């Protein structure tokens, strides 16, 4: 009996020892940081998506980048020099390599810009925004580390267009040997994180790149998981199964903090508005109707009651510091809104809904749920405001974040009458104005205005910076009055961050992982 007990005790000791030994590597290795994104990536090929900048600029690197303060800084480029208004010479940093070991040199830069041109000409990719902003003819090699960018028209803010993720520099050999379909979810870049694997539903696995130009990022392993529902993202953070989410509802800040999650509230330059799609309902072509819809909205009430007073209502076309402080947003004035609709010939019917020539002022409104702060709730509140002035929202539809990404990528194809939307900052007035410029990929409203187009063209080709402020203010004032969108606010960004993660919020709300993840403790 005693010997049996001894054997049992010895076996237990051995089992415990094996267990302890087996767990040693697990303790030594840090757990990956889990970032909960709101949608699966459309593509990981930078030229095929505008919607995945978080991950694209974590894997890839552009000639110039925006640092965490929003300043344009050289990245793959070392310097840039204007030879004349149509020719720019760019020096490339020496000794840089891609994740697969290919060198970053003039050939890679020329290849990247050629690829973008060819894809755009063939109607492939998602390059309307990037190539609409940076109007170049071609890129040519001067020597191994010098290239020349030949423009089709002068552009005084050229570097601000080179920060767009679509123009990430790509390794020529890899992207020549593989088709766009093959590389779509197997990217090779020069960014802080190397691609390891991707499976929809399971996540995108990334590993820190030790030869990154700024040094190896402080967090080794990251998994980016798509979790569309805010409630699920919050539950995961509370349960400790995730480390980072963007877009914590203001109401739940204390709830998350009570569960031991840090909530960082950072001001952001993310502009929230409702896009008004032209070419569908005839009423929306009339500036008086669009102005009436703006006057009917009590933006301050939304900002105070729904967003905890942390959003600032404004004509959020241009970001600070270029936003004209004297430009006041549409005041909440339902009576004025009704008068404008009366003047436009839209008369209230027996059910309160206005009509003109037999057509009812009845619109469709699409909203996301969780892509922007309280987006679904705000959409319902807006519908209520418009109902009060005789505009009916006949179908308020919640669309999936991934569907929204696809529609945005196709310049608003699929948008119905109204669509809640946002735009990140460009850090230049000219760049922010692209939101409503007809050739720009970010004008998803199909709003075209000849007066604005001529103002924009003159501004965009003006090299004398002393004239910029007035030109910027004039353009803002004109567009504000034309109301191509429902102006709302620049929203703060609420980040839910686990206790073990150190995070630096950016004012543009973007989560470039190599720049915002500052370390992780176990």
């Amino acid at each position, binding site marked *: 009996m005693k010997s049996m007990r001894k054997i049992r005790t010895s076996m237990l000791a051995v089992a415990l020892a094996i267990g302890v030994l087996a767990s040693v590597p697990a303790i030594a290795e840090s757990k990956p940081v889990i970032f909960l994104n709101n949608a699966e990536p459309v593509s990981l090929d930078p030229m095929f998506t505008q919607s995945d900048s978080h991950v694209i600029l974590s894997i890839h690197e552009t000639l110039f980048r925006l640092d965490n303060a929003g300043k344009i800084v050289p990245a793959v480029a070392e310097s840039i020099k204007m030879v004349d208004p149509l020719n720019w010479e760019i020096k490339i940093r020496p000794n840089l390599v891609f994740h697969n070991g290919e060198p970053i040199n003039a050939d890679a830069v020329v290849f990247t810009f050629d690829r973008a041109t060819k894809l755009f000409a063939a109607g492939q990719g998602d390059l309307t925004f990037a190539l609409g902003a940076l109007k170049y003819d071609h890129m040519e090699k001067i020597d191994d580390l010098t290239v020349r960018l030949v423009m089709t028209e002068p552009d005084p803010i050229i570097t601000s267009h080179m920060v767009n993720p679509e123009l990430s520099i790509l390794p020529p050999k890899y992207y020549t040997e593989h088709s766009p379909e093959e590389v779509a979810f197997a990217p090779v870049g020069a960014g802080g994180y190397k691609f390891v694997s991707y499976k929809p539903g399971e996540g995108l696995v990334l590993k820190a790149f030790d030869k990154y130009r700024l040094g190896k990022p402080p967090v080794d392993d990251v998994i980016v998981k798509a979790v569309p529902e805010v409630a699920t993202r919050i539950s995961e953070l509370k349960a400790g199964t995730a480390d980072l989410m963007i877009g914590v509802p203001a*109401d739940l800040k204390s709830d998350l903090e009570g569960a031991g999650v840090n909530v960082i509230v950072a001001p952001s330059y993310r502009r929230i508005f409702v896009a008004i799609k032209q070419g569908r309902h005839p009423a929306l072509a009339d500036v008086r109707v669009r102005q009436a819809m703006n006057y009917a909205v009590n933006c301050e009430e939304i900002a105070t009651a729904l967003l905890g007073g942390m959003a600032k209502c404004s004509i959020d076309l241009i970001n600070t510091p270029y936003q004209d402080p004297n430009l006041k947003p549409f005041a909440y004035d339902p009576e004025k809104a009704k008068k404008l609709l009366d003047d436009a010939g839209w008369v209230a019917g027996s059910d309160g809904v206005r009509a003109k020539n037999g057509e009812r002022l009845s619109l469709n409104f699409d909203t996301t749920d969780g892509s922007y702060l309280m987006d679904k*709730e705000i*959409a319902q509140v807006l519908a209520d405001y418009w109902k009060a002035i005789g505009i009916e929202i006949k179908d308020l*539809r919640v669309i999936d974040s991934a569907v929204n990404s696809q529609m945005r990528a196709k310049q608003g194809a699929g948008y119905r009458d109204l669509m809640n939307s946002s735009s990140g900052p460009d850090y230049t007035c000219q760049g922010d104005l692209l939101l409503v410029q007809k050739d720009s990929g970010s004008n998803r409203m199909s709003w075209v205005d000849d007066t604005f187009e001529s103002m924009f063209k003159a501004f965009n080709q003006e090299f004398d910076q002393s004239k910029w402020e007035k030109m910027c203010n004039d353009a803002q004032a004109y567009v504000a009055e034309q109301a191509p969108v429902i102006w709302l606010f620049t929203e703060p960004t609420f980040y839910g961050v686990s206790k073990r993660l150190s995070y630096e919020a950016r004012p543009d709300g973007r989560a470039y992982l190599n720049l915002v993840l500052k370390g992780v403790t176990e």
Partner: protein
Amino acid sequence: MKVLDRPSESDAGVALDEPVASQLLVDRARRSQILPRLFRSKTATIGVIVLLLVLVAAAAAPWVAPNDPFAIKLIQRLKPPAYANSAGITFWLGTDSLGRDVLSRLIYGARVSLIVGLSAVVISGTVGLLVGLLSGYFGGWVDDVFMRICDIQLSFPTILLALTIMAVLGSGLDKLILVLGLTGWVQYGRIVRSQVLSIKNDEFVLAARATGERQWRIIFQQILPNVWSPVIVIASFTVASNIVAEASLSFLGIGVPPSVPSWGTMLADGRQYIGVADWLTIPAGVAISLTVLSINILGDWLRDYLDPRLKNIV
């Protein structure tokens, strides 16, 4: 089980034999006893009372609901139960994230649940009944075609099929009813078919044929009255499952539009606030559970009542 009170039999000149006639009398007597028997069962009585409450609330929602369920008032959002605002209006179940009255939305939500539950049953029951009658009666290639369609439909999980169709058609009450109606007919079709197969060669059907009765009259006047019982039982359970399906699809965001009060959307909207405002989800959850439970209890009782083997027990 056959329901033997067929008026057409005497029209057709078929004399009832003695046991059949006495059975007919017994069945008629049982039918007149249905309510007393129902109220003899305590659980069934509770089920009926709860269901009646829900039905009355749904039918009289504009008069019963204390406030406008659509009225958004941001200033009074997320107020707890029994909150009274400055105008002296009390919100007995609190307010939601847009300041709307939870109790009023709960009452109006009953409408959506019952409309969806009942309308979808009418559609699926009608389609299933027709398919089952035709398939069972005619047999041959008609039966083959209908049963293969059944097999195909059964190979898709109902909720997945509904999700796919709703994703294509978009959200809306009408679409939701159509989707649930058209995805739920198979069980009716199969049961009715098997019933038809079991009685189509019975004497009263053969007699009708022998008298030269038209086929559609045989199907609808002779056979149909004899397959009602299982259809009624299935329908009672399907109403409950449709209510749950509506809540599930609305919870997933593809049922009714977000502004329409439904128990599913209330659950979905409230889930992110569960840690700070549980009154947004608990009433809707309780309402779904109680309603479904009541319908299921009633369905159970009905099944037992219509089962000839349990005739003396119920």
